[in-house]
């Protein structure tokens, strides 16, 4: 992998050198992550299918700035790669806050350098993690799963801390040794997920718990996809809110912003709740008093959701219309409102998960 990245970076720099040596203004061509190049398929999620190409050209000041910025970014990426060093987006921004770049590459804000990272991804056709720019890793996996990661040690995901194994920035290095879970439930919120672990549900019901902690990070989505590729059924459990719909859909289909990065969608994953049916006539129908009102921001998000390609299917639009109509949301903490005692809480979790896993994935626990 490292060799491939190095090869690609050198290839880009060579192209520039050749153009210049021929007395031409250098040009770099790349497939932009524009609407025209992104396709959405319900069964695969977002797909990046380059049809049109853009050019970064060294003949205009604006474009030349981008060109030199990209080359600088690539040279720094190669330097980090060769030295086994990683950097964050913030680091990358600071690599440009250099005295000698005053008036040229010195950025006004991080947005500038972030945009250039995406450009580098498109140019090289690989995710930024491949060329040493990692995200802040976020997310844990707990359960009867044995794996080996870059450290080379065997790890049991139910024996490494109370929240499980912290999924690394580049999960590609992981190999699974043994998977003893029937399914993995990816949970948006830390609190309820920890409770399930604390109540011993993963051991008792042979399921894995993946803790997303908000929007699923790239590394977590990649990791879930790897589990899915190993044949593990994946369920997604989130709040019932306009934002949580996006979180669930991003796990299933990937997002527009990272559509050009492969392997982030988990099309086999199923959204198991909280759903509007649960609130209206199902599991939580007696507890409507525990719902929360939508904020103005929430409502705006619901309106925007009407146009997101990965939320167009009727199952999603049905959920979303409920927000627009009722102006309410339900949070996972609603279990607490139903069961102030620990024993009741465990019963309710198990009841809910059994019903949902059976219904969505045909799995009995």
């Amino acid at each position, binding site marked *: 992998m490292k060799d491939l990245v190095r090869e690609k970076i050198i290839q880009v720099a060579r192209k520039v050198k050749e153009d210049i040596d021929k007395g031409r203004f250098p040009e770099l061509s790349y497939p932009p992550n524009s609407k025209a190049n992104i396709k959405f398929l319900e069964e695969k999620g977002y797909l990046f299918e380059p049809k049109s190409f853009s050019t970064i050209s060294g003949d205009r000041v604006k474009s030349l700035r981008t060109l030199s910025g990209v080359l600088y970014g690539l040279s720094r990426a190669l330097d980090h790669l060769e030295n086994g060093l990683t950097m964050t987006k913030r680091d990358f921004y600071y690599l440009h806050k250099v005295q000698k*770049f005053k008036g040229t590459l*010195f950025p006004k804000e991080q947005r500038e350098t972030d945009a250039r990272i995406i450009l580098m991804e498109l140019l090289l056709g690989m995710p930024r993690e491949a060329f040493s720019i990692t995200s802040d890793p976020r997310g844990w996996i707990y359960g009867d799963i044995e794996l080996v990661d870059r450290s080379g040690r065997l790890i049991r995901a139910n024996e490494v801390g109370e929240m499980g194994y912290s999924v690394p920035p580049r999960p590609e290095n992981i190999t699974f040794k043994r998977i003893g879970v029937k399914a993995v439930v990816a949970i948006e919120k830390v609190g309820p997920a920890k409770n399930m672990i604390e109540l011993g549900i993963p051991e008792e019901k042979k399921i894995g718990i993946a803790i997303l902690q908000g929007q699923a990070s790239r590394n977590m989505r990649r990791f879930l996809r790897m589990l899915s590729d190993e044949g593990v059924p994946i369920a997604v459990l989130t709040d019932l809110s306009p934002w949580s719909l996006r979180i669930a859909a991003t796990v299933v289909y990937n997002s527009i912003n990272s559509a050009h990065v492969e392997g982030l969608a988990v099309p086999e994953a199923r959204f198991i709740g909280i759903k509007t049916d649960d609130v209206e006539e199902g599991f939580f129908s007696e507890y409507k008093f525990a719902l929360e009102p939508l904020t103005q921001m929430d409502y705006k998000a619901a309106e925007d959701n009407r146009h997101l390609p990965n939320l167009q299917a009727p199952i999603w639009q049905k959920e979303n219309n409920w927000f627009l109509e009722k102006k309410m949301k339900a949070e996972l903490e609603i279990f607490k409102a139903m069961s102030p005692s620990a024993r009741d809480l465990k019963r309710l979790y198990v009841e809910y998960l059994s019903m949902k896993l059976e219904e969505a994935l045909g799995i009995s626990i």
Partner: protein
Amino acid sequence: MRRERIEEISAADFFYRNRAIAGFDNPVRATYTIVRELVENSLDAAEEAGIPPKIMITMERIERKENGSDLMKITVRDNGIGLSAEEIPRAFGKVFTSSKYRLIQSRGTFGLGGTMALLYGQITTNKPFIVSSAKKGDYINRMTMMIDVQKNEPIVIKREVLGIAERSFTAVESYFEGSYARAKRKIVDYLYQTAIVVPYADIMFVDPDGVVFLFPRSTDEMPPRPKESLFHPKGVDLELLQRLIRASRANTVKGFLKTSFQRIGDKTADEVLALAGIPAEKRLKDLKKEEIEALYNALRSYDKFMAPDHTVLSPLGKKLLEEGIKKELRPEFVYAVQRPPSVYEGHPFIVETAIAYGGEIKPAGEIQLYRFANRIPLLYDATADVSYQVAKGINWSNYGIRSLEEEPIALFFHIVSTKIPFKTVGKEYIAAVPEVEREVELGFKTCARELKLYLYRIRRKESLAKRAFLFRRFYEIVAECVEDITGERPSVEVLLKTRFGDLYEGSGEGEDNSGGEES
């Protein structure tokens, strides 16, 4: 004639009672007005002789007073035609009414000249004034005089003859009660702006503190003298018509019309008289009051007169206006334009405008507008002036100017006319007469177009240089990074040299240019 005497006495009395209107209402304003009246007198004297004016003004503080108005002495010396012994008392010892029967462009703000200033000095100090003058090669006469206010007659107290003059000159010395400290800025402003609009004048001012202000001439060239001509029939009011009738030597009304006005010949005279219902051969002396009114109304309503003769006007001209602006403001760009002659209410006028940019002109946070009327600077009430309103109304961004207030721009407006359309008795700003407004606007816009071209050229040059400079910096980064990655440095220098040539070589280093935005 009895009537004439009453007129003359009332002129002095008029001044005595209406000092405020003439600009003598307080010691500060009086100090400024005295300088102004005497300087304008001197400019006229030299121009009449066809000589580029050379004027020296000296002001001294003779005695400080508690109330802030000091006893001052002013001496103004010029190189004008010079006056003979007989001419001196008449020229300075008598206040004239503006009872001219002919039309010519003249300077004097109030038509009363320097005598007003001398009279003010006499009234406030009870001291005589002294006039020395001579024509070249003639005796120099020095006369100590006062004015008999009631009789409006000069009283020569002392007369001296001081040898023979090598050059023509006139020098006036007068005492007055005034205050220099607060008038200083106005006076210096006035002289500075006069130097702009009279670039062929040499002006020197030694102020009471011993500070010398020098405004040297930059050219000997003078605009052509205005010609004198008869009134245009549309340009007279009833009072003037009556005066013209009294002064006329014609026998018949028709003869009067033909000899007292321009643009009236046999045919026109007959048509006007028919309109007025007055027989052509009616004797002028027999005209009754009602008939004069009928004649006046006929002149008003008759609409076939040819436009007035504009050769009575003496504009400065494009070259001299630009010369004056360059001399005093040292801009990097100046463009002046003289509009063709035009007419309002029977009065011919010519508008001249100019725009200056950059150089020693700095942004002032307000519109920098210099206004002149008949070659006299107008210093006050700029915002009420027609030229200010016009300037405000123009969309300057069409001409590459983002803000008139925040850029180094000065505007100039000069109007010459036999009757300047002042808005108020203060005579500091020009009324928004539609005909004048139109000329000012066209004038400013013509200048603005030239400025736009100029700015386009320099900005383009700057942006090309800036572009070349940025290219060099960015390609240095490209070269370094490519070398860093591949181990080989691309020949960016060759590329840039072929693409930019001289610009690449000459592009300024060390500037802190900000780069373009991310696409």
